């Protein structure tokens, strides 16, 4: 079964999809219950940047479905996404986007919470998305800080180390999952790399102080 056929099979089961058809070997078109028609480009890539989507006609696409789980999306591609009105995500994201009926401006629930919460903090002047999981936070009268947002339920040393490998430079890990369980080794791995792990409440408090 080809990738596009596999995707059609998965998406056609969604309750909000009225009909779905293949446009070409990488693009499908679906009609939503809200009567809108959306073009979805199907793709598989660990690290997404401007070059990796150069073959996709973004003028004609509403959603780029990347079947690689937890893929990296570069900051420049995030900016292009916003300005050109298309979204990128995995199958779970596409399902949520179909649920909301908005495929071209989809933002995950997790990022909606984080962006809104950071923007409302009185010490935060501006936030910049460095990629799909890192934010640079410009603060009033305090140094800028960079956070990596991870939604792991079990935050292990491996989660910390793979976060560093994948996303590179940041000051702290924000555990966006309210149920997150941090192992002692995760704390040690973060500490040894000169970073901190913070829950949402801890981050909100620490944004008032100098921490880096």
């Amino acid at each position: 079964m080809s990738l596009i056929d596999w995707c059609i099979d998965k998406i056609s089961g969604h309750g909000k999809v009225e009909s779905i058809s293949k446009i070409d070997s990488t693009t499908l078109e679906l009609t939503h219950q809200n009567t809108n028609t959306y073009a979805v480009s199907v793709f598989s890539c660990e690290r997404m940047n401007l070059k990796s989507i150069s073959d996709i006609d973004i003028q004609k696409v509403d959603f780029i479905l990347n079947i690689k789980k937890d893929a990296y999306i570069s900051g420049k591609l995030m900016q292009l996404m916003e300005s050109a009105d298309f979204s990128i995500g995995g199958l779970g994201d596409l399902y949520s986007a179909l649920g909301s009926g908005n495929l071209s401006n989809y933002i995950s629930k997790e990022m909606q919470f984080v962006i809104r919460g950071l923007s409302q903090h009185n010490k935060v002047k501006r936030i910049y998305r460095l990629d799909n999981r890192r934010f640079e936070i410009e603060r009033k009268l305090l140094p800028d800080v960079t956070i990596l947002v991870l939604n792991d339920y079990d935050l292990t040393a491996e989660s910390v180390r793979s976060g560093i490998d994948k996303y590179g430079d940041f000051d702290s890990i924000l555990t966006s999952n309210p149920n997150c369980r941090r192992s002692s080794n995760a704390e040690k791995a973060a500490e040894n790399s000169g970073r901190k792990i913070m829950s949402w409440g801890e981050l909100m408090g620490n944004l008032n102080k100098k921490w880096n």
Partner: protein
Amino acid sequence: MIKNQKQTSGDHSVNYMAGGDIVINGLTREELLSLLEEHSKREAIPQEELLSTREDVKEVIAPLFEENSHIFHTYGPMTEERFNPESEMPEQWLRKIQDFILPNNRKIVETIERNKKLLLDFENDIFTKFKQHVDDFEAKHTGKTKANGTTFPEDILLILE
């Protein structure tokens, strides 16, 4: 008609083959009955008694699993609330672990342990995994360890069928 054919995926779950026949834990109903017949001879438990006692044990543990499952799916860490860092659901979830899930788990383990001779070999393996999961989960939620243990073995829901 029950076909004497194992599902190809071989996982321990209830599935339906192309002909519509039920496969339980990777076994057709015929295969399961044959294993129970062998077990009845080996353990010297009359077959009727073996089947009815297995059913009785299942009736005790099934509601406990159902209650745990309901709590997990309503308050647990996999709901949509996991994307809301300000969610207050974890407080409820942690309380319900103490008040319902841990006591239910203990009752399930005690009940199966008391009736262990009724278990087929593969069910015993599943029960061993479940016991370790219960121990890991309890250790985590009673403050004995910060380490994350094994996950819930879904196959346990299909033993004693």
